[in-house]
């Protein structure tokens, strides 16, 4: 019986290399891989790449009433120029990549853990468990996301942890919907029946049998959501609800610099290019992965 079940059950994993090879054939996907890897490498090597301390300010670059001629624009000492407080922009962008590449994946991963668990429970048990979880998701989804972010962060206070909590709360209902739908389909299939007849526990069936089969749609969604979460974290920073200063945070950098847009556009432009390239990378990667999943 166990052998039959093994034969029926679609195999998880084992084809990773085939997929990586397929991805290299998609030029769009490769651009995405390059952009994301670029920022990952920058984030890892931040202490060695950044020419200055991201929070050290050089007052001699800040134009003020004493010396309005001081120039914060890019020069040979500060390659991307300095910000409104005389801090090196290049160093802040490099360290800022660390902030975003720690907070966004952590938040997305946690949202997936919660979303998958609730989605599996709702789809597998149905009945009142499903009603409870689905109604709760509906309520959360009836708020525009940004309104919920504002409400949660202004109630809890701005910090990296609270941003992660907010992302979990707001993103997991959407993941619940996807996982619940797939689980409801999968639980009717033979390999689940076989596992039940083997006497496996419900927890084992959900985690070991059903969950691996949801990965196709979820991998593409995770990639898109990673980009979306990056945007949301940037937005929170821009609205002044992100990480408390002086942490280098791309959205927050633009917020501080936007008032000086007319005299020093470089202060806003470089962080804007940084966050855009990272999100475009995630989206193109997701598109490449989607193309692959359509092929097999």
């Amino acid at each position: 019986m166990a052998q039959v079940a093994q034969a029926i059950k679609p195999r998880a994993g084992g084809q990773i290399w085939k997929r990586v090879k397929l991805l290299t054939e998609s030029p769009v996907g490769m651009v995405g891989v390059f952009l994301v890897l670029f920022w990952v490498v920058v984030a890892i090597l931040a202490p060695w790449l950044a020419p200055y301390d991201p929070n050290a300010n050089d007052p001699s670059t800040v134009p003020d009433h004493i010396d309005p001629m001081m120039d914060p624009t890019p020069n040979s000492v500060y390659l991307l120029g300095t910000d409104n407080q005389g801090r090196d922009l290049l160093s802040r962008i490099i360290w800022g990549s660390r902030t975003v590449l720690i907070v966004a994946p952590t938040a997305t991963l946690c949202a997936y853990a919660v979303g998958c668990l609730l989605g599996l429970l709702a789809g597998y048990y149905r009945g009142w468990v499903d009603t409870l979880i689905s109604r709760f998701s509906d309520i959360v989804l009836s708020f525009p996301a940004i309104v919920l972010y504002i409400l949660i962060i202004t109630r809890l206070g701005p910090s990296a942890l609270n941003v992660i909590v907010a992302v979990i709360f707001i993103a997991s209902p959407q993941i619940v919907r996807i996982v619940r739908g797939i689980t409801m389909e999968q639980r009717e299939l033979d390999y689940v029946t076989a596992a039940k007849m083997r006497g496996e526990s419900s927890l084992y069936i959900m985690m070991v049998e059903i969950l691996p089969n949801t990965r196709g749609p979820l991998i593409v969604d995770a990639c898109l959501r990673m980009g979306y979460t990056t945007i949301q974290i940037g937005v929170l920073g821009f609205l002044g609800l992100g990480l408390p200063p002086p942490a280098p945070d791309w959205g927050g950098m633009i917020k501080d610099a936007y008032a000086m847009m007319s005299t020093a556009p470089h202060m806003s432009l470089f962080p804007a290019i940084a966050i855009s390239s990272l999100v475009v990378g995630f989206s193109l990667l997701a598109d490449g992965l989607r193309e692959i999943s359509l092929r097999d």
Partner: protein
Amino acid sequence: MLAFLVRRIVALIVTMLVVSMLIFAAFEWTPGQVARKVLGPFATQEQVDLLTEQMGLNRPAPVRYVEWVGGLVKGDLGYSSYYKTDVENIIWDRLGNTLIIASIAFAIIVPCSILFGVLAGMREGSKLDRSISIGAIVTTSVPEFASGVFLSTIFVLYLGWFPGVSSLERDGGWSIGSQLVMPVAVMVLFDLGYVVRMIRAAMVEVMMKPYVRTAILKGMGFRQVVIKHALRNAMIVSLTVILLQVNYLIGGVVVVETIFAYPGFGRMMLESALSQDVATVEAATLVIVFITVLTQTLGDLGYMLLNPRIRFA
């Protein structure tokens, strides 16, 4: 049909009740907090207690909830501690301002997204499809505050065509019309790509249907197949997606309004939340959730009217 309508209206009322309870619980459960927020951090405990007493906040929460909802139903939205006026004096003006840019953006997004979505989806994998799809992916991936920076650099700083601030006041010498261009452009840029991709996906699916193949095989021109058979059916799915954009355009404009200092609903929401103006935040949240749930209901209704298989089932 009637049963469906009644069911959806009941669901709408239930959602609004649950949401209002959640908002009430989040903001007003602890009575001391409300008085503390009104008086600020430097008031003494006696003052806080006195105001709590005066505002009737020491009575049981369910009683206060019923009173609050009763006031809302009668149109009494409370007093805004940030704007120093009754909430209803400000909230409808702001909603009106947001509706102006939202409806202009909507009027641009709908025809453009249908055009690009159909062009991309009618021949899946063609050069045109790939370029439109990648263009759509890139524009939706650039956050609004970043595209605001890019567009401002080009059109405000270098070309000087439009103002960088859209306060709807005439003192800067810019007409109201020219002030609307930049916010609308950022909204369209961010939202258009998403709608294009959804319509493209719907179109791709329809083009693979047997009736489209039959139409092509019987010798019907490609243009006619697309317009007569495919487009109509693709629009059924797309209608829901398009209607859901109303939520983004009204609720999600916080960023755009903050960038251009536009006196709209989203910025009011942010300002009142940041300054702990409970009455305004509560009212604004309820209004925005109401709009969201209403458009969802309208979307389902439209879907049903357009799709005969569901209508007659």
